[in-house]
Structure formats: structure tokens, C-alpha cells
């Protein structure tokens, strides 16, 4: 989804089942993570992905909230039950039948604005070494993803019901463990999630299937009974599941029976791994099916993720900041004015700026930290004072200060009010002056960033769409005068057709432009006067031309390569990675995530490796055709060349 409507609430569910401790089969082709990727376990991969997602969430907006639920933990600690709670403990001791809700699940935090402690806690999550023998069957199935989802749904309802959130549950699991499925609770949960418009995303580590449901499937009449049938999409079903059962309860029993048999098999005949494999595969298969069917009713996606990068991109979608739509009058022609909206389309982002604070030092010269390990920094302010330029000890106070403007080397005092009088009064407005062929406005005159003009209502929307299409047809730009804010100084610009980018590139070419994009153009005096000799006389002969043609042919890039708008700014990326690394590891002082860490050929901002290899000869031929020689630069002194030397003049006499 290209845009987000509001702040987000996300519950991440991390499966810490024993199987997650196994190496990640498909790992290794991730270009951005460190080189130990090959040895990474599924849990570590998932942790890294969640860390990435949570930090993205934090960076995107301070109002985003999230929670992390870890499955299969030793203890139980979540909003419905806490092992540490004394009352609960007492109840547990007294009443043998006291049932713990969703045991072996830990909520690292309720749904809150994420902080660094949450990330640090996440780093500490590890797989509890389950000694299978010591666990009874029930226990081995506790703390499964189904419980996790139910808990997440409960948490979501408790914390966000009635508030404006874009809700999402993201589950990271390999679904290899046989777990409890509480069908009795699922219906309610699904209904809850549907009510809250909460979607479900499953990142299936080593999954075989993927599915995507743009919208939650309709629940048909009597669906509750047929839940199982619906859940298992016949297409995906395997033979073993052909027994359709009407009641959820029965199905569980069925499952349990299966499990029982398999467990016995496993225990008794450990030397027949194929059976165990078959059983494991079946469990996994069933689980996958279950998750797909669950997602079908909540809306969302199931991804068979093959690497962390994929996990990140799949679960994040494109995270584009939304722009404010500013009200503006759009004057199209005499008598035609509409209420339109102007918004920013591109905006150059930079590495965040640093803040200053004052710190104290201990005897060894290290900055003093508080009990949480944070550096204690005192806020500081900048105090600016003005002093007489000749007499250093005389301060010029506010009353003696005035504004002046430079007239060459002289300063002309001018009051603020005088300048106010020069202002042209106007509401925010875009007025079309006329139209010109696109060739009249050279690219060198385009001044980014771009803005978008869209319409809130039918009139403005239709007028803008009609103009956009007409401009495209006639190959013209509209010349406009643009006043950004009330009484602001006007600027000149062009309006050109803008076709919203769809995910499907083919569709894009067909779809009609819908909005107008605004690009500033220079005033007369802003254009620099450049006078250059034409290059035509220096074009080399046939050999040189051939070398150039070959170079171009060899380095033609595929359409999907080096599309800048899909490449994150490497400096910002490195900055964030370093910042996060330093946040989680306070002793870390280095830099991570630089382009030097990227393996050769994996850098997205470079010529694709295959093209580079093939193009080497073309480069070589270009070099041979155009030999270059560095001219030794003399110092600046004496560089002004003389056409005439004194000695020459004497000779000529």
C-alpha cells in the first residue's frame, strides 16, 4: 500500500519453538546483513527482521505503537496471566483446576510506543532448550502460534479498540511444531480482528506456500460450522486431510490422534527418519494451511520468506511518508477557479542533524552514565549577543539594534514594517498564465522538488484530470504563478501531467494521468549565463564513434535496475544502522552498514555485475580510442599566460 491512513499499531509474534534454533535454510543471499548470515538460525533471522521493522516503525512516526509476543517461553507473562503475579500464583496453588490462559507465552511489552528497552529485550530472546522427554504432550503443544494470535487479538482489542490506528499482526514462524489450536476461541478472535480492520501477516520461514488476501473474505451464513472446510482451501489440501469435519472440536481430536500416533512412532522407531520426516512435513503443512485460512478471514498475507530482506520488504510494504494536502485556489482561466490541494511529491532527505548537550566525566575521562546506562547530558542553549564592532566591551542591546540591507559595501537600515508594505497580498493560489510546448522549458530550468496538484472534490478533480490529459495529448506544459502561503512571494512554475505509479508497470503505461505535478522554473535573473563553444567540432572520427556506441550498447541497463526512487539513500541507511547498533550495544563506537560492507556485486547502486563483466571490453576500447593525459598543473602563480614576452618585443625592434 502506498500510503498509510494513520498511526500504526502492530503486534509482532515471534515463534521461539525449538525448530527455530535450526539454521535458516534459505539464508545467505541477503546482501545487507553481515557475513555470518549463513550460520544464522531462523530465530536470529526473525529477530533481526523484527528489530528492523520495529526501528522502521519508530523512525516513521513517534506515534506508532507495537507489541512483541514471544511464543514458547519458559514462563508465562502477558496481560492475561503473569507468573510473577502473587495472586495468580496463590490461585494456582490452591486450585488444581486453575487453567492458565495461553501458557508459555511472554509479552515483551503491551502495545506501546516502542523504545530501546523493547529492542534490547528482543535481543535477549532465545529458544528454551526443551527437554522433550520431560514434557507431556499438552505442554509440548503449549505456547503455539494459535495462542499467540489469540493473545495478540486480545491485546489489540484491549489497547486500541475505538482508537484510530492502522492495525496489523505480524507472525514470524516456521510452523514446524504441533501446537494447540483453540477453535472455540478462534471465531471470536476473527470477528474481533475483522471489526478492528486488523490484518494478519505471516512471515513463513521456510514455508512452501504464499497467499495474499486484499480483503477479508466474507463470512457466509452458517460459516461458523463450516469453518474448517472454509479454512482449508480445497486447492491446497493434501490427501490426508480429506476427512472433513464439521465440528472444530472433532478436528482437534483428529489432529491429536494423528500427533499421538506420530509421537509414538517417533519415540519407538527413532531409526526410521523418513516417518518422522513425513510426520513433520504433515504438521508443517497443516499449520501452513491453518495460517492461510486464518489470514483469509482477517485479510492479509502469508509469505514464504526466503531471506531477511524479503521479510522486511514483504511485511513493510512501501513506506512512503504522506504529505500534507494544502488548500489552494487553482485559477485555470477567467471564470474558472476551483478549490484544489497542493502536496509535496518529493523532498530531499538528509542524514539527520546532531544535537548538542553537555556531559560530565568521571576520573578516567569517560562520560558519566545513569543507572540505566544512559549518558547523562545536560540540555544547553545558545546565547547570542551583539557587540560593537570597534569597541569590544560594548554590548549592543536590542533597543540599539536595527535591521539593515546591504547596498554593495553600504548598509541601508530598513524597518520591518516598510518591507511589509512592499508585499503583495494574496491567498495561496496557483494561476495559469498560459501554455507552452514542452521544448520551451528545458530540463535545465526545472527546479525540484516536485509538488502535486490534486482535487478534493468532483469539480477540481475532474478539471485537473482533464487538464492533465490534455497537456499530455498536446505535449505542453502550463505556465503558472504559484503562491505557496498567504501573502508569500510568488514563484513561477510549470504544471505537467502526473500519472500515479501503480505497482504494475504495464498498467502504468495505459493509465491516464490523474494529477498535475508542479515544478518550479527560474525567474529571468536566476538563469546563469553559460557560454560554451559547441562540442560538434571535437567529435572524433569513426573509431571513436564506434567506441562510444559500443560503450552505450554494452551498458544499457534493464528497466528495473537503478531505479532511484526504489533505492534507499545509502547515507541515511548507514546512519540509521549505526545509530541502532549503537543504541543496542552501548560500547559500540564504530560504523555499520556502509557500502564497503556490501559484497562485491550486491550493491544496488552500481552497474549490475553481469553487465559490468560483459562491458569490460567496451570500456577498454573506449580508453584506447580516447587516450587521456593529465596535464601537470603549475601553481596558480605565473599561470596567466602571456601572448607576448618582453624578449619578443625586444627582438622585434
Amino acid at each position, binding site marked *: 500500500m502506498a500510503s498509510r491512513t494513520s498511526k500504526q499499531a502492530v503486534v509482532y509474534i515471534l515463534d521461539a519453538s525449538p525448530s527455530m534454533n535450526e539454521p535458516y535454510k534459505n539464508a545467505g543471499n541477503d546482501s545487507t546483513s553481515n557475513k555470518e548470515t549463513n550460520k544464522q538460525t531462523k530465530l536470529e533471522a526473525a529477530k533481526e527482521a523484527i528489530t528492523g521493522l520495529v526501528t522502521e516503525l519508530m523512525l516513521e512516526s513517534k506515534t506508532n505503537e507495537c507489541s512483541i509476543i514471544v511464543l514458547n517461553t519458559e514462563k508465562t507473562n502477558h496481560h492475561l496471566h503473569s507468573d510473577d503475579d502473587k495472586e495468580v500464583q496463590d490461585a494456582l496453588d490452591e486450585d488444581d483446576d486453575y487453567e492458565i490462559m495461553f501458557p508459555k507465552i511472554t509479552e515483551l511489552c503491551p502495545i506501546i510506543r516502542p523504545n530501546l528497552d523493547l529492542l534490547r529485550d528482543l535481543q535477549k530472546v532465545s529458544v528454551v532448550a526443551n527437554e522433550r522427554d520431560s514434557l507431556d504432550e499438552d505442554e509440548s503443544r503449549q505456547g503455539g502460534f494459535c495462542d499467540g494470535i489469540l493473545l495478540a487479538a486480545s491485546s489489540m482489542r484491549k489497547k486500541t479498540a475505538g482508537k484510530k490506528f492502522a492495525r496489523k499482526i505480524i507472525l514470524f514462524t516456521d510452523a514446524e511444531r504441533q501446537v494447540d489450536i483453540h477453535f472455540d476461541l478462534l471465531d471470536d478472535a476473527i470477528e474481533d480482528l475483522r471489526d478492528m480492520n486488523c490484518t494478519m501477516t505471516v512471515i513463513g520461514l521456510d514455508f512452501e506456500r504464499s497467499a495474499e488476501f486484499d480483503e477479508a473474505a466474507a463470512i457466509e451464513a452458517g460459516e461458523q460450522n463450516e469453518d474448517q472446510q472454509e479454512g482449508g482451501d480445497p486447492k491446497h489440501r493434501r490427501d490426508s486431510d480429506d476427512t472433513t469435519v464439521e465440528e472444530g472440536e472433532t478436528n482437534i481430536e483428529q489432529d491429536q490422534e494423528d500427533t499421538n500416533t506420530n509421537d509414538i512412532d517417533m519415540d519407538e522407531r527413532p531409526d526410521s527418519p523418513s516417518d518422522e520426516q513425513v510426520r513433520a512435513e504433515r504438521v508443517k503443512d497443516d499449520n501452513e494451511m491453518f495460517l492461510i485460512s486464518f489470514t483469509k478471514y482477517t485479510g492479509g498475507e502469508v509469505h514464504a520468506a526466503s531471506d531477511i530482506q524479503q521479510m522486511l520488504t514483504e511485511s513493510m510494504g512501501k513506506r512512503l511518508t504522506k504529505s500534507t494536502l494544502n488548500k489552494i485556489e487553482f485559477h485555470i482561466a477567467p471564470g474558472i477557479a476551483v478549490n484544489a490541494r497542493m502536496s509535496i511529491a518529493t523532498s530531499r532527505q538528509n542524514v539527520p542533524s546532531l544535537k548538542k548537550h553537555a556531559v560530565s566525566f568521571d576520573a578516567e575521562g569517560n562520560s558519566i552514565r545513569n543507572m540505566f546506562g544512559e549518558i547523562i547530558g545536560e540540555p544547553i542553549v545558545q546565547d547570542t549577543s551583539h557587540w560593537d564592532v570597534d569597541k569590544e566591551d560594548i554590548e549592543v542591546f536590542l533597543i540599539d539594534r536595527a535591521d539593515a540591507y546591504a547596498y554593495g559595501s553600504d548598509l541601508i537600515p530598513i524597518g520591518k514594517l516598510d518591507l511589509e508594505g512592499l508585499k503583495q497580498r494574496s491567498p495561496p493560489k496557483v494561476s495559469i498564465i498560459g501554455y507552452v510546448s514542452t521544448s520551451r522549458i*528545458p530540463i535545465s530550468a526545472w527546479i525540484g522538488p516536485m509538488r502535486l496538484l490534486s482535487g478534493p472534490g468532483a469539480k477540481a478533480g475532474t478539471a485537473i484530470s482533464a487538464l492533465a490529459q490534455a497537456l499530455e495529448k498536446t505535449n505542453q506544459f502550463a505556465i503558472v504563478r504559484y503562491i505557496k502561503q498567504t501573502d508569500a512571494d510568488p514563484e513561477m512554475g510549470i504544471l505537467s501531467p502526473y500519472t*500515479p505509479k501503480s505497482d504494475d508497470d504495464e498498467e502504468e503505461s495505459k493509465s491516464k494521468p490523474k494529477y498535475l505535478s508542479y515544478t518550479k522554473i527560474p525567474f529571468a535573473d536566476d538563469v546563469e549565463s553559460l557560454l560554451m563553444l559547441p562540442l560538434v567540432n571535437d567529435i572524433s572520427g569513426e573509431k571513436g564513434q564506434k567506441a562510444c556506441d559500443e560503450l552505450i550498447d554494452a551498458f544499457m541497463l534493464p528497466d528495473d535496475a537503478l531505479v532511484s526512487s526504489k533505492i534507499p539513500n545509502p547515507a541515511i541507511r548507514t546512519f540509521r544502522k549505526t545509530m541502532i547498533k549503537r543504541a543496542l550495544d552501548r560500547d559500540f563506537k564504530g560504523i555499520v552498514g556502509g557500502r564497503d560492507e556490501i559484497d562485491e556485486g550486491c550493491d544496488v547502486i552500481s552497474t549490475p555485475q553481469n553487465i559490468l563483466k560483459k562491458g569490460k571490453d567496451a570500456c577498454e576500447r573506449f580508453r584506447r580510442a580516447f587516450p587521456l593525459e593529465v596535464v601537470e598543473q603549475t601553481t*596558480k602563480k605565473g599561470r596567466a599566460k602571456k601572448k607576448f614576452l618582453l624578449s619578443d618585443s625586444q627582438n622585434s625592434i
Partner: protein
Amino acid sequence: MSDFEDDPWGDDPDWISDSNDEIENGTGQSDSKTNASTGIAGAQHTILLLDAQQSMFESYIRTSDDSEYEYASRYERISPFDAGLIAAEKLLHHKVSNVANTRRGKRDGVAIVLFNCPQLANVENLANNSIRTLMTLKPPGVEQIQTIRSCLNEVDSKRDITGSTDTRVTPKRKRDLYDELYASKQEVEENGDGDYHFDVIHQSTSLKSALIEINSMLNEAKCVKKNSRTSTDVEDEKTVWIFTNEDDPIDGEDKRKTPVLSAANDLIENEVQIKLWPMPRQDKKPFNKNIFYNHLVTEDEDIEGGEEIDEANIESSPKEEELDFDSIIGKFMETLTKSRKVQSIPFLLPDWKFTQRDGPSPYPGMMIDIYQSVRVKKKPQPIIINTNTKKRTKKVSYLRFKDTYNPVDEKCIRTYVEFGGEKIEMTKQDVIEIKSKSNVNPKEASLVLFGFKNREKMNRPDQLSLVDRSLFAYPNEGMVKGSRAAFASLYEAMLRKGVIGIGELLQRVNASSRLVAIIPQEEYVDEDLLQGLLLVPLAYEDDMRATPQSEDNDADDELVSAAVDMIKNLNLDSNVVIGESFENPVLKTFWNYIESIALGTELKEIDPDEDDTMPRDEKDVLKVCCEEIESFRKLLPEDEVAVSEKKRKISSVMTENASIDWFKAYKERILEEFTINDLKSYLRNHDLRLSGRKSDLIQRIEDHIESIIGDDKMTFEGDNKVIDV
């Protein structure tokens, strides 16, 4: 204070300039190390050397009726000397406004020296007496502008609008330099007094003395930065322009040549460029530079590029039978305002890593000069002055604890970045390292080519994901020989094959690199084809914003074709020229105001019709396109609320009901009988609010009329009679 005007991408300090120093020639104390590495030049000092021999004062240069130059526009012919003065005025004005509008050139000095002046016999040094310094070398301000203007014909702020065809007006000026220089001569001649001797020294001697004088002026001037020989700082640019109509100051005698050239050589040793601005000769013979001046002037530093064009222009112009004054000044200003390169960097091939200098087969890469195509001028920020001394104050900043307001020891200050509510330590050095590690070529500023793409999909701003201004690249043969041929051939091939390049541009080692589209430019600027590569910065994913979601308001074909008709009828192709059209109205007004205060002159009225940034007059538009606009308007679906502005405009055009006697209506209490439209037309004419019910409107009109007649006796427009209350 920071000055990022030289940041070719905009105001952002982060992008090119990490240092907050004043990059160009701001204070003369700037950290010039960065300058040297980026090739940003120092201050530009200009000395105008005007020939003051008698023929320079003869008015024989033709001017055009519609001359842009107000000092010449009303005279048929002006003298070469005046042309020189007008050029000087333009130069001073340019320098002064440059400081105001671009904050550049604060240290640029200008001087005007006259040579070949008549000498007085009873002074010791005749040669020195033949030169006069009209203004000495320093950054110009009010004084200089006033001096030069006083020497020129007065310009009436209100132009002669009688339409008189007699353009010959007797020049009026506060200060006539001819009189000043030659009056005593005339007197002497008339009186036959023997105390004065004129023209006793040869004009070549005067020229020589002038050159010597200029050299000492340059050495003494405060504004000229003096670098030691070992310094790597950028030198100031120093140029002497000689304005003369005499192509043979040595009278064909070679022996007179040597002393002048010797003096010129001293200047050249001092890094001064000597340039000639030949004026048309009175006898209409072509100005022959080969006789003498070609030996005197310096060659341009950059062998290739624009300089040669100028050279060609200079050469060709005086050969024309009669040189037009406008073209003299126009070309002079063109030369002065010519954009200077921002830097020179290598342009590297995709496999550059294998051919680096320390590699087995080093290949330097074509050297390219980077220029700014556009430099947006903004209204200057005010400078704070001390009202008692009228001088700029010295700004001192201290850091203090926010709570106690005690000063903070510099050593305790650390930088951090906030994340997840915690402070994460991060130093400036870290950020530099982060940026450096994020660049493809951390070793040097360069442009690395990655590959090519078809151009057809990159024809609109949105297709390029435009985020900033473009830069212009042109080969530099002087630094790397062979660059020009390689660059020109690649440029031609890219154009022929319809491709653009994609590359990464790093302008400073400490800055962040940027992905750029490398577009072969084939655009005409005026009539000249400006060939070179445009570097257009592309948006990263971080720079993109989400497209607003709105309901589908797809226009139907009928509406689109109505829009097409409208567009065709309102085409401005013949009127719009980038670089000429759209004078910045805000800067114009602002500058006009500052100047009137600075010089104590009357505020010039600016003709609103000259402002081509305003929409054209509605009636004019409707004349050419009424039907099309109407059919487009009719096809638009209606919204609930219309823009009030629109209503106002239309109705103000249509109904200006002057026939109603409002005062009478008020007195007779019959305002209610008027329609709402009539009532509104009154309110509109008196800039009152239009909203509310009819009774509100009437109340408002009554209040207004009462307020008018409230101040004792007033003439009320309605019936032109004095109301006695």
C-alpha cells in the same frame, strides 16, 4: 553565519558544504582550504581603464530607440567615453545588487582610472598627471554609484511621454568629466597663457603610467587578498579592462611598445588579467588589435569554452561599420556575469575501479567542469546593525546550561542523536565517516557512470523523480588532455542513440553522493546551442512521498477535448523564453525600494503591466479564447462550494453598477429594494465583506455610509455633493 550560495544544489548545508564558513569571498577570513579543493574562486576585482583622449568624448556611437539602457535611450548618439561610463555604471550596479541578492561578491573591488588626460605643465610628474583615478579600488557602495551617476546624463524618473520624435535632448549632468578635464585647456588656449602644456607626453607613456598605478593600487587595496607564494588558497581574480577607440597608441613606433609591455608584465606577474574593450573608431575604420593591443592583453586562462566566444565577439564587433551601443554594453555585461565553474571533477567509466591511478593500467577519466545552470536569487536576510554607529554588530554566541544559564565548558559538549527516547552518542566525525562509507568512490570527488537508459521515459519531471536543480557539465581540456574529444564523442553518441546515463555524483569527499541522470543537453539558449551534459539529481526512496489518494474523477473525452482547445488557444510559445521572461517581481520591488533609500532618490514607479508573471488581463484572454473557456467551464461538474475569489472577479468584470446613487438610497431607506448583486457590487467596490444574508449586507452598507459621513463634511461619490451633517 553561513553562506551556502555556492552549494550548487540549494541551501542545504549538509549536501555539499559541511563547513559553516563563508565559502566564497565573504569575509576574506574564510577557510579557504575547502575552496581550493572545489575550485571555487576568490573575489573578482575589476579595474576599468578609460581612455580620456579628446575623440573619446565625441558622440558618434549609434544607439537604438528602444535601448534597454536608460542613460542612452533618449540620445541618438553617444560618445565612447560615455559608453565606457555606462558600462562602469552597469558593472557597479551589478556588483552592488549581487551582494544584496546573492550574498556573493562582498569583497569584489571596482576601480575606474582614466588615462590620456590633458596634463598641467607646472606639475612635477607629467606622466602621473595624465591619469586620474575616478574611483579607487574597493567594494562599491552608495558613494561609487552616486559618483558614476553624477557623471552621466540625468535620467528623468518620469519619462517624456509627449511622444516627441525629437530625441535630441541636451544632456544634463551634474558633473561633466570632459569639462573637468579639458576646461582648463580651453581656457589656456583662449587666453594664450603659457603656463600650461598639453599633450606633452605621448599616449603610450600615459598608458604605461596607468598600468603602473593600477599595480600599486592592487597592492595597496584592502579588499585584495594577498596570498603568500606557498599558499594553496585561491587567488582573487584581478582584471583590467581597457576601454579605448585608439588601436595604435604607439604611433607605429616599436620603441614605444617596450615600456608599456614592461609595465603590463609587472601586472601579469601579479596575476592580473589585462583585457581590451575596443570602441568603434571615429573614422569607422576597423579597430586593428594586431597593431598593438594583441601584444598587451593576456590570454584567457581556460583555453576552451566560453572565453573564446567572447574573444570572437570582441574581435568582430568593432569591425561593423557602426557599432550599436546596446550590443557593446550587452556583451560587456555578458562577460562580467558569465557563470564561473563550481569545480572540476573526473568523469569515470563503469569499470573505474580497475583503472584507478594506483591500479595496473591507470586511466584518469575525462575531466569535467561543473557549472550551475540556475542559481535562485532570494531576498536577502537583514543584517543587524548598531543604530548608534550604523555599523554591523559583532555577533557572539555562547553555549549555556539551559537550567542554570551558566556558561558551558567547550570540552563538555558532545553531540548525539535521539532515538527511541534515548540519546545515542554520535560525533561530527562519525557522520563524515558515515557519509564517506556510503559513497561509491570515497577517495575523491567524481562522477561515476553506471550505465545508460532509454531517454523516452525521462521526459517529464515526475518521470525523473526530480528533487533538485540540475548542474551542467562541460569538458576541461586544460587539466586532462583528451577530455574534450572523449566527452564530445560520448555526448554525440548519447544524443544519437537517444539514451541518458545514470551515475553517482560526489562533489566533495566529505559530502553525500547523489544518484544523477546524465542527460545530453541539446537546447538552445537564445540562438546559441549550449552543448554539454546535464546532471539531474534523482530522488531516493527516502525522498519520495506517497501519492495522495482521492476519489476517481476521471474526465471524459469531451471535457479533455475542451481542455485541448483551450490549451491550443492560450499558447505562449512565442512569449516565453527561459532566462528572459519572468523578472522576479518581488526582488524588483525590493531592490527598487532599497536603492531609493540608499541613494536618497525618488521611488521609481513600477509599471504593473511589465510584470509578466501575472495572469494576463481577463478581457484579453477572453478575446482569444472565450468560447473554449466557456465550454470547458460548462462541462465541469459543480461542487457545493465555489471559490469566492472567482465570483468576485467575474462579477466585478460584469456588474459595476455605477448608476445607483447609494447615498440617496441610504437616505431614503430603500436599500432593501436592490438585488443582492447590486448590494454586493457596492461592498466589493469598498473592499467590504460579501458574506451573510441580505439584511447583513444592507446593515454593512449603512454602517459604511454612516462612517463616511461621520467625519464632518465629506464629498460622497454617489451624487458629488457635499453632505452637511
